[in-house]
């Protein structure tokens, strides 16, 4: 069930009515939300609802055990053991579904290279949608309880935290400390929250259904499918187009998730903050997929030692974190290279900050933005390419300037694709927090006026969207 479909629209309207009708009992309301979330998830594959429930129960039970064990010295080993069991269990689920096939392929290729000709079984494991998100969510709950940053919660709250349909399949990764306190009472709805939520849904729908979908089908997919068949003009447009597509696609999901949760009375954290206006890669990661980057920082980078061992250790930790962050996206060498590129540049930025001669000038902000954007685009080429060879073919084609002015009509890039890329990029230059500010102002309108305006916006989006809708890019992760 995809957000930008009528089927989901009807599902949500019914849930909105039922959830608020049940506001007399918080427990029943949460049970209804949980059941609805399982229906939503089961629409892909009912078998994986059991996996979701099992994962929640295991994390809840281990967290309870950790919380009930006093943190006295004799029990420290037992508590650590429970945490390790939980983390390993979560990683085992992720590894089985996501990395098993990749691992066997690599082992097989290595053995073949060494002359040991044995065929390994080919595993066709179906990847449960959103598995990376809900396992990370479960792990963060467990670790937070262990560290004393979150109080242990009841089974219903933990299961709802991990299953809540709004963030279930593509984030944001909402921490227990952010959401579970909101589950304790029936949430309050305000006009400002509802207006902001509705605007985020409409804005997300526009970014996904109009900008991202059109760029994908009209430019990015054909160019990345066969880069060798395209000249430099199409490849440059495709690279920039993908940067806009992935931003509009992923931030649209987050916007809609935040908006849907807001209409049910819950607040999710911000997940994007105009990332392409970042003047360094460090700044980029404070603005892009914020819930994942802060997860990696808190549970991986800091666990590895963070900055505590000095500059070189910090650089090593940055590299490891970004390599694993790349692998989190999928079992493929292109994701590893993407992570390695980000890790290398983050480490280089750190060394530059540390060892830059004081007399040397700093980079002007606009140049920093330009350089950072192009490093990010370079990473996206590996991220999007079907294989390493395809990415290399794409990069080598960027210098193939053989455009015949008489044959401009044969280019894959079109005026609309250029216009949408520019429109997507120009959103980065809008005043920060624009939607929030608009929500606060529009909440003062009469309901009928706001409803009519919303209807007009949705009608325009509907008229511009292609038939059907492709799944969000991050569903595959």
């Amino acid at each position, binding site marked *: 069930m995809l957000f930008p*479909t009528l089927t989901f629209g009807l599902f949500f*309207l019914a849930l909105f009515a039922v959830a608020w009708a049940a506001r007399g009992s918080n427990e029943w309301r949460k049970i209804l939300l949980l059941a609805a979330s399982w229906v939503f998830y089961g629409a892909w594959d009912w078998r994986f609802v059991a996996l979701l429930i099992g994962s929640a129960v295991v994390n809840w039970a281990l967290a309870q055990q950790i919380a009930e064990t006093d943190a006295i010295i004799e029990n420290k080993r037992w508590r650590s053991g429970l945490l390790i069991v939980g983390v390993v269990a979560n990683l085992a689920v992720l590894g089985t579904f996501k990395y098993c096939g990749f691992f066997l392929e690599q082992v097989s290729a290595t053995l073949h290279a060494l002359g040991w000709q044995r065929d390994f079984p080919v595993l066709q494991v179906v990847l449960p949608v959103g598995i990376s998100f809900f396992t990370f969510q479960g792990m963060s709950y467990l670790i937070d309880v262990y560290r*004393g940053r979150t109080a242990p919660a009841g089974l219903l709250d933990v299961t709802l935290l991990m299953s809540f349909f709004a963030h279930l399949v593509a984030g944001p990764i909402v921490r227990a400390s*952010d959401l579970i306190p909101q589950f304790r009472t029936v949430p309050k709805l305000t006009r400002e929250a509802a207006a902001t939520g509705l605007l985020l849904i409409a804005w997300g729908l526009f970014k996904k259904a109009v900008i991202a979908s059109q760029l994908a089908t009209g430019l990015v997919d054909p160019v990345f499918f066969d880069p060798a068949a395209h000249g430099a003009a199409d490849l440059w447009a495709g690279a920039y187009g993908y940067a806009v597509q992935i931003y509009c696609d992923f931030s649209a999901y987050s916007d809609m998730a935040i908006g849907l949760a807001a209409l049910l009375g819950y*607040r999710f954290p911000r997940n994007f903050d105009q990332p392409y206006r970042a003047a360094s890669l460090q700044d980029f990661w404070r603005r892009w997929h914020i819930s994942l980057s802060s997860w990696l920082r808190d549970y991986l980078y800091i666990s590895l030692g963070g900055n505590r061992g000095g500059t070189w250790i910090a650089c090593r930790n940055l590299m490891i974190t970004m390599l694993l962050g790349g692998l989190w996206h999928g079992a493929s060498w292109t994701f590893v290279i993407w992570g390695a590129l980000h890790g290398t540049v983050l480490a280089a930025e750190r060394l530059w900050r540390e060892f830059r001669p004081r007399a040397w000038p700093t980079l002007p902000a606009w140049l920093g933005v330009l350089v950072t954007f192009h490093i990010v685009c370079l990473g996206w080429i590996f991220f999007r390419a079907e294989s390493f060879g395809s990415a290399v073919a794409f990069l080598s084609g960027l210098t193939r300037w053989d455009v015949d002015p008489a044959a*401009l*009509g044969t280019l894959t890039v079109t005026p609309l694709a250029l216009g949408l890329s520019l429109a997507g990029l120009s959103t980065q230059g809008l005043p920060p927090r624009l939607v929030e500010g608009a929500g606060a102002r529009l909440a003062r309108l009469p309901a009928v006026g706001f409803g009519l305006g919303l209807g007009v916006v949705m*009608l325009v989006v509907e008229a511009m969207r292609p038939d059907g809708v492709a799944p969000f890019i991050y569903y595959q992760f």
Partner: protein
Amino acid sequence: MSAADAVVQDLADDASPIPAARAAEGSALAWTSTVMAVATAFLLVFNAASLKSWADGLEPGPATVAVRDAADAWAARMQALGLSGPRDALHAGWKKAVAARMDGTSGE
């Protein structure tokens, strides 16, 4: 500090685009429901083509036949009344923009 003593805080004010509710607004639910009902009714009237397209894509079955017939009849009625005109005009303009090539010709 043991886990049981952990201090749990709600999401910080600036951490979410959604403003925190300081107090319940009695009229907010009615206001939100009205907004959603008006927008839905507006789209039902002016965007009947999407309803028809959705119904056509449903799995064939006894229940869906009735839904499809009703959606077809509704879309036909809205078209007859000229209410699908704005969407059709916008959609035609969009298709033209999609087909335009870099040399100014139409790819169609």
